[in-house]
């Protein structure tokens, strides 16, 4: 038997294979990719947004990218992620900004490339434009809800109430604090407010909380505007043996924070409905791509979580990462 090596056929096969590979390589993916950039990752409050974005994207046969800084004040890292996604030419970006001003330029860069951007939770220090929508936590409502809870603890006149976590980088915190003050002054015009800026470094936050407790004996309630502040105040209250004596109302949820509501160490938590925010954002981007949506501001109402209602289905649904209460 004579073995015949058909060189021509082999060469043609290689050529055909190369052609197939090249064609497949050039096709790439046609699925629209949505980048979701939270203020930080591995926090339940934003993991629920992640889960919802993936669920919606799957139902549309779209795909998502998810990543954020490892801490909420690492603005530089968030800008880097944003720039990378803009360069990649994603179909849309959902951004929870870590800074009201510093993120404006990256957003403008996205808009220049016709990438629709949804800003969640806290606004930028700019107005929404055609390619930019603000889907914000209703911070004024949050302030009013907090005021409602604080009012339960006011005794007589000359009470002191502290607000921790106001930060100019997060414009929503200013709105919340102002709304709360305005509402509380209707209860007691003589009420005194102690306001302190937020810091994300634990020792400083802890210092701030301890100093506050020592210097203000008339404190009736403390309202914290982010989970870092809430944890610091909880720690300080514990060390100063003031748990239960000063009401603590938190304005952002994480599973470990909610636990303190269950134990009674905290009065309540006002939970942000991040799932609804991201759902609205996905739908807006979808409509924007079809040319039927334009820039606007949408407010999403937060939910009060107390020891009494923490196990109710509607509360658990907001808290749950996958939106499933079972």
């Amino acid at each position: 038997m004579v073995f015949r090596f058909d060189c021509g056929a082999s060469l043609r096969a290689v050529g055909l294979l190369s052609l197939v590979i090249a064609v497949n390589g050039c096709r790439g993916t046609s699925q629209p990719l949505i980048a979701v950039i939270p203020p930080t990752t591995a926090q339940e409050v934003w993991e629920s947004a992640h889960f919802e974005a993936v669920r919606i994207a799957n139902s549309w046969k779209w795909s998502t990218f998810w990543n954020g800084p490892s801490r909420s004040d690492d603005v530089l890292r968030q800008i880097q992620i944003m720039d990378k996604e803009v360069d990649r030419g994603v179909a849309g970006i959902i951004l929870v900004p870590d800074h009201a001003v510093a993120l404006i330029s990256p957003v403008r860069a996205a808009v220049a490339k016709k990438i629709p951007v949804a800003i969640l939770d806290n606004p930028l220090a700019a107005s929404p434009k055609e390619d930019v929508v603000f889907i914000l936590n209703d911070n004024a409502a949050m302030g009013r809800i907090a005021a409602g809870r604080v009012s339960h603890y006011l005794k007589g006149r000359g009470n002191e109430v502290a607000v921790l976590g106001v930060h100019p980088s997060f414009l929503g915190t200013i709105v919340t604090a102002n709304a709360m003050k305005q509402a509380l002054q209707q209860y007691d015009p003589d009420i005194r407010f102690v306001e302190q800026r937020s810091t994300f470094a634990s020792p400083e936050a802890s210092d701030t909380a301890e100093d506050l407790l020592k210097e203000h004996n008339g404190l009736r309630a403390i309202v914290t505007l982010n989970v870092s502040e809430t944890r610091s105040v909880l720690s300080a209250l514990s060390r100063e043996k003031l748990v239960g004596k000063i009401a603590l109302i938190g304005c952002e949820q994480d599973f470990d924070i909610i636990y303190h509501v269950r134990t009674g160490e905290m009065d309540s938590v006002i939970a942000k409905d991040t799932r609804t925010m991201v759902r609205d954002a996905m739908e807006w981007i979808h409509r924007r791509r079809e040319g039927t949506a334009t820039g606007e501001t949408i407010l999403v109402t937060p939910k009060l979580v107390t020891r009494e209602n923490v196990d109710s289905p509607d509360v658990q649904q907001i808290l749950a990462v996958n939106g499933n209460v079972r």
Partner: protein
Amino acid sequence: MSSLRQGSGPRGAAFYGGLLIVACIVAAALVHADRDKYVLNTGRMDKWQTFGGVWALERGVFDNNSDERGAKLMSGSPDWSDVSLSADVRMDQEGGDAGLMIRSNNEDLGVDAYNGYYAGLRAAEGALIAGRSNYSWSEVPPAAMPGGVHKNIWYHLQLVMYGCRLGVSAENLSTKQTASLVLHEDKCVPKGRIGLRSLSTGSQWRNVAVAKGTQAQLDAIASHAGGEVSPEPLTTEAAYAKHFFGYGRATPAAPDREQLPTPTATHIGDLTDFHGEVPRQVLVRGVVTLTEPDIYIEDFTGGAMIKHPKGPPVNVGEGVEISGEAHPLLYSVNIDQSSLRIISTGSPAPPPPLSVTPWQAASGTYDARFIEVEGHLTRDVYSENGYQVLELAGGGETFRALFPNRSDETLRNLRVNSLLRLRGVSVLGQSYTQDLIPFLIFLRSPDDVQVLQGPPWWTPWHVSLLGVLAVILACSIQLSYFRFRQWKKDAISHERERIAHDIHDTMAQSFAGIGYQLQGLRTSIIRNANVSREQIVGELASTSDLVSRCHADASHTIEMLSAASPAETGDLLGLLAEQTYKLSGGKIRVCKEEEGTVRPLSLRTRGVLFHIGQEAISNAITHGHSNTITFVLRYEARSATLMIVDDGRGFDVSPEDEGFGIVGMRRRAREIGGTLEILSAPGVGTRIGVTFPMSHLHFARKLTLRAWLAGWKHAKASPEPE
């Protein structure tokens, strides 16, 4: 074998195609072999890739000196599939977790920013954990570690990934207590790199080893585990509360902070000389920004160096409380004779650096602060006093950056004149700067150096090299020009010589004949007055014939000189046939034939063959009185032959008697490396054969689509016999 030899045309292309396939197979085999080679370089840090953290490698021990959440150090092959990975792990804190990654892909900065598996020890729960991340974490129920998980204890971790099952075992190397668990997924990550990872605690890893994972290894771990579970994300708050704490138990999140008296802390920024009287004994709180060579902390007002603190070792990013003796400096403060306690762990990385210019750093405002600054590297990185030293310049300032001289060689790859962005703790003071520079920066890891821009291409060396290349290029062009002119001159000279030969062979001889005829007639008339009128007419008739022949020769020469260049036209045999028709006035029958696999001839070859053919045609018409001329072009494997055969009178072939015409044909044949062969005898016609080599065409040319298609058609038309 024969088929390969014959395939110098399209088959040659196929041959090279076959070689290409073999090369692909060999390359694939090499890649496969590399994939199956389970080797880790645990001696050089530059063989690992960092994603966050402050990493160092000292005598085989990897150290992440940072509490950053999700700091990763990656290595290995992205094609590793069934892997056994083991290491001893030690944590610095009673919080956070530390462990190993396996089959990891697509890593990035971020807590869960990878696609793969992670297993480790979690201090808060005292448990062995394992799970899967795809930029979102899911885990299996933790396995309780007997005796809990504590800081400063070495634990041996082993991960065995086989198929879609991950077996994890841990052993407390002090108490020999163990725990195991097995994770499985229906759709698993098929392959990936390995890595070290920690979350919210500094940690060390030693004896990091990798090998091929086996079913037996996995089964051995599974025999001690309590079943196999798929990872699930914690999705509800209620489940979280039940899972971790249970209802009604003591508060979990009030940190395990010591219940010590807490005097009011002083802001670090208030401790400098500029703030008037400074307390000698102070209590400050801050975040650790540097641990080597000294501990530096900072709060939002300033930074301080902590000298010889008594207390536990600390990591970058941890919150600490320091009480000690303050020694104010001009721009910062040293705290000596101090005691240190950690007041917060598991906080994220140190605060983002303050981005300043070199001038601002030199102003002292940022002394002992964690800063980010840019500058150009002015010389190669060198070692001095146990540090790798980077000398930089920017904004009119010169400064240095120092990194402990470990086995990490990454910084030595930096090129002079690169624009760098550095992060580190800025330090002023004569003891560090020796009054040579205004400030220096202590780097924490090679990741603190980012190359913003490589050195410009126009370094003196590059400019010199470019100049030399330009000179060489100019010389080459000049040489080529001279060679071209010489070639052109030679070509003209050769053509003149050939025309001279032609004229000599034809018209010159005819004119000489005419001259002899006329001279003979004249001599006859002068010497013999009785020359008859008939004789004179006969001589003149003969002379007239010679003039006619001479005219015909001149016409032939002009015809040949004015013939179109064969390079400009197509078929060589067709041209020769046309030339025969013109020269003979259509009286000669022409046959032409091609044999073998037709291949393209070079322009030079076509030109030479055309001129030889012209000469042969002219001879056949002029001397041979032929009726038929046949042109045959035969292609062999490595050569080809042009044969011109006529049925004329023929002649005796004698090398001594060869005229200019034949000599010219031989010379032309030699120009293309060929030989000329003449077979002839009186009465049997003449056969002239020119055999010449076929040039070896370039491989790429053989692979052209045209050649490929020609081979395809030829193979279809003439299948090779068995």
